[in-house]
């Protein structure tokens, strides 16, 4: 900017060299040169004059010397007359006067020619006497002197008068020199005066121009400073608006509600733009009216005002858009995307609302679960797109059938729910039946017609007493019962007298299923130890249920439910998977780090698993997948499993052929014949802990255990005693050659994360 300023203004206007400046400067310089030349010439003339003074006698100086020599002649004459000087001396004095008179003075004249004619005549009159002087006898000198007095006196007078001539010459010479000097100095003075005059004019002119230029520059700078200040104020205003807008926007993003956001915006605008009269009207998420005024007294430029207005509108648009998005999100959170009905979350909230309504106002709360019969088959045969069309159609029809004060939701894939407040149970059941009738219909699809039937599970609360937690479970149980019969278009209404006893079991089954689905079943590992020497050799995998809110649940408390729910195989498969994974990731590394041989993992297998003919293949595939050597895997079965007969035996035999060992668990708790049992395809006999109870005090029991052990060993079976809780018991069973043991003495069942520590600390 400054460069532009300099280019546009300073270079052109601050000071501009004018032709007149140059002319005056040239004149001044020329006169200075002239003065210098003149001074130099004058100095040279002076030097020449000085040179001439030394190199050539001036007329006046010559005259002085003439007078001196003349007096010398007169003196010699007087001395001669007194006989004090010879005549030759007088003549020599005259000769020296002659030399002086012959000198050519500066005027170019001989000195003689400068003297007055009277002097010349007096000298000429004297010379005859001087010529004769050597010849005059001394006695005659004075008479001759006296006789020549007029001549001598005249010469003497003329000699003295030479002073006048000298004065005239000196005066004339001085006058000439003075005039010459005066002329020179006059010229110099005139030149100097002219130089000062022209130089002064030039300096004044330049000074005036520079002053004017600076004044103009100063005015321009002030003008620009004013513009800069204005721009600065504008910038501050715009910047302030921008910053505070960003603050509001950040607050909006942080959850500031619309009303407070608009209030905040008004506050900001009033502080920056007092009197703006902001007018805002909204309709839903739409800004229907937005007006703002630019108060003239503030002098805000239209451009800045438009910026502020746009920023304000932007904030309003943002907050309304945020509200719209929030509404959309809320709607999405509470509704099913496919059918547009409420989802399970909205349904649960509505159950609470309607239950409160019944409890406060009266009436009954009816909940109907509607489930499309064989919807899985429909999906399989027609495809998921057709299935979705059916669901959408169901949604429409349910919505169309709803009455005031009824509410519908889609709970899962093909399960819908309708709830409403009714006068009594009969009305509620009637509505449920009516809804079923409406939904039992043919549905036209793009390429087919589907005959849809729905089964209904219905639960109705007592009058004026609705339990928002219990009633949905009742409806779900009713739905479960309706679906269990596999009858199409079934309708079951929950009846506490008939169905209450089913509720607990059904709910436990649900809990077990959830536990299996969410990974709440955990496998713990109890060490198996070689008794002599006392070395860990393996682990038994034991199932535990880490139930949220309750803690660890023992297998005896949930395995019956697992079995009754038909989940034994699924749970068993989970145990196998977790156990093999733990062997690879924890058990084997822990043993290796402790310098021990690889352990084996002993996994409990339920009878129902063995009944599956593919179990052996499945198990071997899992072992292979987990990269566990088969001779480090052992399965434990109970006597119950053996009732499966040959089919079970074949599977066990196949597994044993791969190196996997089969152990009979809980031996001593059943009723099997020991002899028959030992003939089965087994490798290990695990003595149940009940066998060890009272062993220390009951020698008969010890003998019996000794007999069993001997028989087992006779059939090449390993024997493992379970439930060893003391060294005394350990020593006793070791004394009857039982090789392996497990129990609290060595370690309780532990989560996989504790295995490392247990192995490391076992022999410490």
């Amino acid at each position, binding site marked *: 900017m400054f460069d532009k300023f300099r280019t546009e203004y300073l270079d052109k206007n601050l000071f501009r060299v004018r032709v007149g400046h140059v002319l005056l400067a040239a004149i001044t310089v020329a006169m200075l040169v002239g003065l210098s030349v003149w001074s130099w010439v004058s100095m040279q003339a002076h030097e020449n004059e000085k040179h001439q003074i030394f190199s050539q006698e001036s007329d006046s100086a010559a005259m002085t010397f003439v007078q*001196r020599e003349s007096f010398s002649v007169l*003196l010699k004459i007087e001395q001669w007359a007194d006989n004090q000087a010879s005549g030759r001396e007088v003549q*020599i004095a005259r000769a020296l006067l*002659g*030399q002086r008179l012959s000198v050519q003075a500066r005027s170019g004249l001989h000195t003689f020619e400068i003297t007055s004619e009277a002097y010349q005549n007096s000298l000429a009159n004297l010379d005859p006497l001087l010529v004769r002087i050597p010849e005059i006898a001394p006695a005659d000198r004075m008479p001759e002197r006296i006789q020549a007095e007029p001549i001598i006196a005249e010469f003497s007078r003329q000699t003295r008068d030479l002073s006048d001539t000298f004065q005239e010459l000196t005066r004339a010479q001085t006058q000439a020199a003075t005039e010459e000097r005066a002329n020179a100095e006059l010229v110099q003075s005139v030149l100097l005066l002219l130089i000062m005059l022209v130089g002064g004019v030039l300096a004044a002119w330049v000074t005036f121009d520079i002053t004017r230029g600076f004044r103009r520059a100063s005015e321009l700078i002030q003008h620009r400073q004013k513009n800069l200040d204005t721009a600065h104020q504008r910038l501050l205003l715009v910047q302030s608006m921008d910053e505070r807008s960003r603050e509001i926007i950040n607050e909006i993003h942080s959850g500031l509600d619309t009303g407070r956001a608009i209030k905040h915006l008004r506050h900001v605008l009033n502080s920056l733009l007092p009197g703006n009269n902001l007018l805002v009207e909204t309709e839903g998420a739409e800004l229907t009216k937005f007006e703002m005024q630019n108060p003239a007294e503030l002098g805000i430029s239209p451009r800045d005002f438009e910026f502020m207005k746009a920023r304000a509108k932007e904030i309003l648009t943002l907050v309304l858009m945020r509200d719209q998005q929030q509404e959309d999100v809320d709607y999405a959170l509470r509704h099913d995307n496919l059918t547009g009905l409420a989802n399970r979350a909205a349904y649960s909230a509505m159950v609470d609302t309607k239950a409160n309504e019944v409890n406060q106002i009266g009436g009954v709360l009816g909940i109907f679960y509607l489930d499309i019969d064989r919807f899985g088959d429909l999906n399989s045969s027609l495809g998921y797109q057709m299935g979705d069309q059916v669901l959408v159609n169901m949604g429409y029809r349910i919505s169309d059938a709803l009455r005031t004060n009824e509410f519908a939701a889609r709970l899962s894939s093909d399960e819908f729910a309708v709830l409403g407040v009714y006068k009594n149970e009969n009305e509620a059941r009637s509505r449920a039946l009516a809804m079923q009738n409406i939904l039992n219909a043919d549905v036209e699809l793009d390429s087919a017609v589907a005959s849809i039937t729905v089964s209904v599970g219905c639960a109705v609360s007592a009058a004026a007493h609705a339990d928002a937690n219990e009633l949905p479970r009742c409806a779900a149980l009713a739905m479960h019962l309706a679906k269990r019969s596999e009858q199409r278009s079934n309708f079951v209404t929950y009846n506490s007298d008939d169905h209450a006893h089913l509720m607990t079991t059904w709910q436990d089954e649900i809990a077990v299923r959830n536990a299996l689905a969410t990974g709440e079943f955990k496998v713990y590992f109890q060490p198996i130890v070689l008794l002599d020497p006392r070395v860990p050799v393996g682990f038994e995998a034991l199932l535990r249920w880490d139930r949220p809110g309750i803690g660890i649940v023992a297998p005896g408390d949930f395995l019956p439910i697992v079995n009754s729910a038909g989940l034994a195989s699924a749970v068993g498969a989970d145990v196998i998977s977790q156990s093999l994974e733990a062997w690879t990731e924890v058990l084997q590394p822990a043993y290796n780090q402790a310098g021990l041989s690889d352990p084996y993992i002993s996994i409990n297998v339920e009878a129902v698993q063995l009944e599956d003919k593919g179990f052996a293949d499945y198990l071997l595939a899992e072992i292979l997948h987990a990269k566990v050597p088969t001779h480090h895997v052992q399965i434990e079965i109970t006597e119950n499993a053996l009732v499966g007969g040959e089919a079970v035996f074949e599977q066990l035999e196949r597994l044993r052929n791969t190196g996997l060992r089969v152990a009979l668990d809980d031996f001593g708790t059943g009723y099997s014949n020991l002899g028959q049992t030992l003939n089965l395809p087994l490798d290990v006999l695990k003595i149940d802990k009940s066998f060890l109870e009272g062993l220390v005090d009951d020698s008969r029991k010890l003998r019996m255990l000794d007999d069993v052990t001997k028989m087992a060993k006779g059939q090449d079976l390993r024997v493992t005693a379970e439930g060893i809780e003391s060294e005394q018991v350990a020593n006793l069973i070791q004394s009857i050659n039982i090789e392996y043991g497990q129990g609290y003495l060595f370690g309780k069942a532990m989560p996989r994360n504790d295995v490392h520590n247990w192995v490391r600390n076992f022999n410490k």
Partner: protein
Amino acid sequence: MNTATKALMGLVVALSLAGCTVVNAAPAPATSSSAETENPYGGFAVANPAADEVILTVTNGDKTIDFSTMDLKKLETTEVTIDEPFVNKKQTFVGVPMSVLFDSVGIKSTDKVSTLALNDYKYDDLAGKFTESKGIIAFLRDGTEIPMDQGGPIRIVFPSATPYFDYLDAWNWSIRSISIAE
């Protein structure tokens, strides 16, 4: 001595105070005078001193040497042709370099010497100044003796292009003696 004589002597003394000292010239030997002279303003010819007559005395303290024209001619001489500044004529002078005369009595260049003429005109300066300007005591001009009314019998001459050539005060003519200045 009459009053006029005293007045004349007083005037001469007063003029001498400006740079000249009046001394009595030794009695001149009888010489013949001629009524003719080359100098139109000389009035009449005055004979030069005899060849063996002492015309120059050079003194340095106790050491004094008197020179006649004959003596000077026996010394080393040099010839100088110049435009004589007093008469503006080209003239050739022959004379003895002043350095030779200084050396004869042991005057050093740093000694201040006094040159004195027959009319008592005196000029003092360092001996080196005279030798620097190659001053000579000339006794011949254009091959003949220098007449008495033209600066003779001997006079100081400086060659052209020397510092004293243009400084006429140093051109002492009819010189009579050279001594250490007091």
